[in-house]
């Protein structure tokens, strides 16, 4: 049986027709992307405070080897669903205006940014507290894995403390 593309789209449940909301991007986070995200929020004049967290890949020394990159993978569907729940909890617990999270998948070289957390609120304390909780959540509760690529192509699985 064959479908025309239009028919196929109509057959899909509506959640799949729309592009799924996901925290994952397939590149490092660029400073220009961050600037654009900030600039977009100028129009929301209820906002008084933005709290931003950026994770950057360190050139850690492990014995005699140096980390050159981290390759990230994730259980994307689970991470996005769990984030949607946690996001709701944070919006309930704090008076927030906006919340955005971007995490890289694939290889990010040292010096590159692999995590961009961006929380905005009317008064600063809400954004500051929620941002810290969210970063903690991503480090501890999100099904994401980092494989450290060392000099000489050795690898080591990243451990979060």
């Amino acid at each position, binding site marked *: 049986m064959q479908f025309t593309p239009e028919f196929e789209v109509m057959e899909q449940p509506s959640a799949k027709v729309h592009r799924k909301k996901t925290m994952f991007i397939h590149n490092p986070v660029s400073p220009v992307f961050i600037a654009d995200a900030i600039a977009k929020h100028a129009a929301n004049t209820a906002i008084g405070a933005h709290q931003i967290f950026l994770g950057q890949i360190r050139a850690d020394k492990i014995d005699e080897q140096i980390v050159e990159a981290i390759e990230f993978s994730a259980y994307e569907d689970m991470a996005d669903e769990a984030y949607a729940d946690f996001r709701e909890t944070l919006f309930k617990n704090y008076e927030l205006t906006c919340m955005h999270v971007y*995490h890289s998948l694939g290889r990010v070289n040292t010096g590159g940014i692999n995590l961009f957390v961006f929380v905005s609120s009317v008064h600063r304390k809400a954004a500051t507290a929620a941002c810290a909780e969210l*970063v903690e959540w991503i480090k501890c509760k999100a099904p994401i894995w980092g494989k450290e690529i060392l000099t000489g192509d050795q690898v080591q*699985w990243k451990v*979060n403390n």
Partner: protein
Amino acid sequence: MNIKVKLFGVLADELQRQEVTMNNISDVRSLEKQLLDFHPVFNRVHCRIAVNRKLVTDNMVLHSSDEVAVMPPFSGG
């Protein structure tokens, strides 16, 4: 019952695949037991199981339609 199990991180690396089918699985505990025999990585790495994209700690019955995943410790961010 056969259950497809998603693998992530070091598990996917060591088994060189992202999914494995386990036979004669009735519940989470039987899956855990079989994994220990299946490959030494499951002894070495502390793993957690997700069913339908939610972490599971207590035992629960599994169905062939369930989305089951075994996950090593998280290290995102």
